[in-house]
């Protein structure tokens, strides 16, 4: 059961459906009646990407064509802009493989850019050597008519660091999934997300972290703002295996619902089989603070401006955690554009 094989075989029966526990809020089977033809090659010039100026290497995968293999040798640092482009109404799948040798560092600036009613799948495999470090920043701007599923498998080594911030404005149906094999051993993981959804957009941020060894650190903060008839899904699972003692894991998910018809479905799960662990999670879904809104309006801000200011501040607390300075500013601008009137 996977989207990749469904696309390959043009077989809707292989699509995940609401019967699959993990996909019940992002049902593809019920949505896609017929899998479209394979996408033709990307037509025209995609233009420059937002992160190009920050990167030393730009890797573009357009309509599933090309396989990206990125390798960062021991002790080196790379700045890679990875652009995943979708165009038209066809179906396509792309693969990306990223390997960091011991002590290597990577700034990965990943964008999803779409136009049309495509069905797209992207598989990423990221492997970090001992002491390696990755900051992955994802800006997902799929088209309102696109179906897009991104699935990353991350394998950490002891003392490695992986920090991720995903921002998305959703799609017709969109899921950004990150699965992390965490060996402990003072490896540290940060998995953050922001979803900003309007109209009928759907976004699903799903993460699964499996702590298999002692002394692992995981920190997660996801925030969402949904309006109109949009729907946000957050599924965060942290598994602490037997013996993975001294695991320190924190998970937070907080969402603001700005209209009656918008929806947020959240499932934070901590599955702990070890004894000596520090795990905490918090989950809140609510409306914008009306008292704060009145306060801002009493000071002269029109409703839309006050809402933009407060929602920007709300998601700003996630954006503040991005390490890379220029990327953080860029991402803040991207979010503001989607929250301002």
């Amino acid at each position: 059961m996977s989207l990749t094989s469904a696309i390959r075989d043009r077989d809707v029966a292989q699509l995940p459906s609401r019967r699959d526990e993990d996909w019940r809020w992002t049902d593809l089977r019920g949505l896609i009646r017929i899998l479209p033809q394979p996408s033709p090659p990307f037509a025209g010039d995609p233009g420059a990407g937002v992160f190009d100026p920050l990167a030393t290497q730009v890797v573009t995968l357009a309509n599933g064509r090309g396989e990206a293999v990125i390798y960062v040798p021991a002790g080196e640092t790379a700045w890679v802009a990875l652009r995943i482009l979708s165009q038209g109404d066809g179906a396509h799948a792309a693969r990306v493989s990223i390997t960091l040798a011991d002590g290597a560092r990577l700034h990965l600036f990943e964008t999803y850019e779409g136009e049309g009613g495509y069905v797209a799948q992207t598989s990423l495999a990221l492997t970090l050597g001992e002491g390696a470090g990755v900051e992955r920043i994802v800006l997902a701007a799929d088209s309102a008519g696109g179906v897009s599923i991104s699935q990353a498998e991350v394998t950490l080594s002891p003392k490695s660091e992986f920090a991720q911030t995903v921002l998305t404005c959703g799609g017709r149906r969109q899921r950004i999934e990150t699965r992390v094999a965490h060996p402990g051993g003072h490896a540290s993981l940060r998995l953050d997300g922001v979803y900003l959804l309007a109209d009928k957009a759907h976004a699903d941020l799903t993460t699964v972290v499996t702590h298999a060894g002692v002394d692992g650190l995981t920190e997660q903060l996801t925030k969402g703002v949904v309006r109109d008839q949009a729907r946000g899904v957050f599924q965060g699972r942290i598994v602490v295996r037997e013996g993975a003692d001294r695991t320190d894991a924190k998970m937070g998910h907080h969402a603001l619902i700005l209209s009656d018809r918008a929806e947020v479905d959240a499932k934070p799960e901590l599955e702990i089989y070890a004894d000596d662990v520090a795990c905490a999670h918090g989950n809140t879904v609510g409306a914008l603070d009306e008292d704060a809104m009145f306060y801002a309006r009493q000071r002269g801000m029109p409703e839309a401006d006050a809402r933009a200011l407060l929602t920007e501040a709300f998601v700003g607390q996630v954006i503040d955690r991005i390490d890379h300075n220029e990327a953080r500013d860029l991402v803040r601008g991207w979010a503001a554009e989607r929250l301002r009137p």
Partner: protein
Amino acid sequence: MLKVTNLHAEVDGKEILKGLSLEVPAGEVHAIMGPNGAGKSTLSYVLTGRDGYEVTGGTATLDGEDLLALAPDVRAARGVFLSFQYPLEIPGVPALTFIRTALNAQRRARGEAEITAPAFLKLAREKAQALKIDFDMLKRALNVGFSGGEKKRMEILQMAMLSPRFLILDETDSGLDIDALRIVSDGVNALRGPDRAMLVITHYQRLLDYIKPDRVHVLAGGRIVASGGPELAHELEANGYERYEQAA
């Protein structure tokens, strides 16, 4: 300036203001005193347009314009400012950002040009200094983790920067230490002028030693039940509200 006539207002279906009338001419400072629960804060919210405060009768005008028909931000742009009894915390928004956004929104609404960043910072430094507020505090999220007195000072700073025409101070003195009371009062007095007017809500005569009112009103049971000169505040301090509560 402000003219309130026979104002009735409800909160959650309960009538709180029951035919309140009040007139504050330009250039004057009026104090409102009254027992807990009399409707003082309710009046300030009705005048500023807070949701949930439903006007069921009467009028309120500012310079002849129907105040009650305007959105809260439009009232602010006309110059109405409320110093909150309980200022709100705004997580993630530095005080400076909040005030600059508010100031520019007001300017836009009045068809004025936005203030430049250097001019804004200069103004903020100047006003913060006058109110003895550490400038670094303005870089912190507005009111988050501020002490009660600091929040009140921050209200007056916002007032000083927005330079409103009609000021409502709802128990600005509560929570202020003796020095702060003087500093804040100086800040308020600096805004006195022939084109401005103020409504000062307080429980304590002491504030009125610093901000000298032209008139003092007693609000009890949702109405103004007595009005007089500054001596009325002394009389209330000595005798309490008992006889007015009976009148109400």
